[in-house]
């Protein structure tokens, strides 16, 4: 089958009396022509890469602009005390910051579904995995569910900030994470769909307005809202609360909003936070250092920054 709508996946799961993850796993086997073991192995690689990225976080690293670095460490120290939202949620915030920072600092991460939103999935998964001693097998099942959700969103709407704004990146990651959490808690397939719908609805319209065009501000901290929103949506769904708008319609709405977002709010750095006085100043600084950095650090490269005329 194709991962074209949540309704189709849900129908297949009912028809074949299988859990969602199984349907998505089988679709991957069919699509890529691989065995069950090969597919599981690849998913395990992604999971291990998330764990490695978390373990190798270093708060002393700084990003290209210098705007990002050390916040994860700050939050970790604070989280050990008496944070307002409780220790577990504080750990989730910490994880999201660490992962987003590692990405900005050119460390190895898992794009899920994008590099800018790479912190959301591990932020909700890793603390729960540690706290509840969940088996790796069940973590992988949750990741299959998340992947299937992401595939549907990518098919029906979009997952790139340039196409649909931040709602398509952090929003999609949050929806995927919400579905994964409901799966880990033994929720029903319907509850997964409601969690996805609620998570995505809550972030509808979020613009992509990166300062200086970099995946740093506000991207790193938006991973936090993606993760916290996923937990809230999963808890609501597990409580039996339903999304009044069906999940596939919510996904369509996200795609629609994305298409109608002015181009200034789709990763172009021409609107929102990117054009605040401070945002512009950062950009100026980056542009100014562009030439300097190049000639200082590369002996062999002769950088010519003049714009050449139209080629070919």
């Amino acid at each position, binding site marked *: 089958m194709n991962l074209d709508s949540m309704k189709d996946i849900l129908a297949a799961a009912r028809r074949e009396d299988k859990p969602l993850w199984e349907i998505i796993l089988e679709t991957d086997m069919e699509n890529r022509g691989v065995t069950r073991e090969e597919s599981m192995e690849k998913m395990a*690689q992604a999971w291990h890469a998330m764990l490695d990225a978390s373990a190798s976080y270093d708060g002393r690293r700084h990003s290209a602009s210098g705007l990002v670095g050390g916040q994860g460490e700050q939050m970790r120290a604070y989280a050990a005390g008496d944070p307002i939202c409780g220790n577990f949620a504080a750990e989730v915030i910490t994880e999201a910051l660490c992962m987003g920072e590692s990405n900005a600092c050119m460390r190895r991460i898992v794009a899920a579904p994008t590099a800018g939103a790479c912190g959301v999935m591990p932020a909700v998964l890793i603390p729960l995995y540690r706290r509840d001693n969940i088996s790796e097998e069940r973590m992988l099942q949750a990741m299959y569910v998340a992947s299937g959700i992401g595939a549907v969103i990518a098919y029906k709407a979009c997952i790139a900030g340039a196409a649909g704004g931040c709602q398509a990146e952090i929003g999609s990651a949050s929806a995927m994470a919400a579905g994964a959490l409901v799966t880990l808690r033994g929720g029903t397939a319907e509850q997964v769909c409601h969690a996805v719908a609620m998570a995505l609805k809550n972030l509808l319209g979020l613009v992509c307005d990166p300062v200086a065009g970099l995946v740093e501000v506000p991207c790193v901290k938006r991973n936090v809202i993606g993760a916290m929103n996923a937990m809230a949506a999963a808890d609501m769904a597990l409580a039996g609360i339903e999304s009044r708008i069906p999940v596939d319609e919510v996904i369509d709405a996200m795609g629609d909003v994305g298409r109608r977002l002015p181009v200034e709010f789709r990763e172009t750095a021409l609107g929102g936070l990117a054009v605040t006085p401070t945002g512009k100043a950062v950009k100026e600084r980056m542009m100014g250092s562009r030439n300097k950095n190049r000639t200082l650090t590369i002996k062999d490269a002769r950088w010519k920054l003049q714009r050449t005329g139209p080629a070919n």
Partner: protein
Amino acid sequence: MIDIFDIMGPIMVGPSSSHTAGAVRIGRMARALLGEAPVRAKLHLHGSFAETGVGHGTDKALVAGLLGMAPDDLSIPQSFSIAEDQGLTFTFNEIDLRDAHPNSVQLEVVGEEGNCLTMQACSVGGGRIRVDKIDGVEVNFTGDYNTLIIHNRDDRGHVADVTYALYQAKVNVANMSLHRDAKGGSAIMIIETDERVPALILDLLRRLPGILHITYYEKED
């Protein structure tokens, strides 16, 4: 059909799947198509690659790819000094390519044996790439499949010869496109295949009359 590992992945060095991971893949593709280690490279950055490339490490990523690194190689940030050690010199320019995707780059590379390649490619999102031009001829392929790039004379029968050889080798053609600069001039056949193309068949194809040059790119997992 969307590959779920394009959603849960790629595993990559940050910060951007399009500006970093995709750029590594473009460099790597150029190296593969060149067929040897490059020693000189001119990289012309277009659009968003030129605007925000430095902050995203696009420049380092392209050089890393030319050195043969994969998108998850932790040495990508150090690619400039590694290039120096390995004898690859490079220059960067900004360029305005007509009608090109915003994340585009044109690479002119020369290999250690003297092979030359000019390639224009773009990063289309999520680390996925598309090659748009090879040596001035417009093409369209992604590296998602095993890919044969066959330069031939624009003359009848070559497509039939090549596809028959693939059929005999039990290789299925997934996508195929033909491009030429002028009638009777030089042409390029791009054939994307589901199965790998055996070395024996590559040799056979190279010996077919009218076939000038063949490059084969084998899909990476």
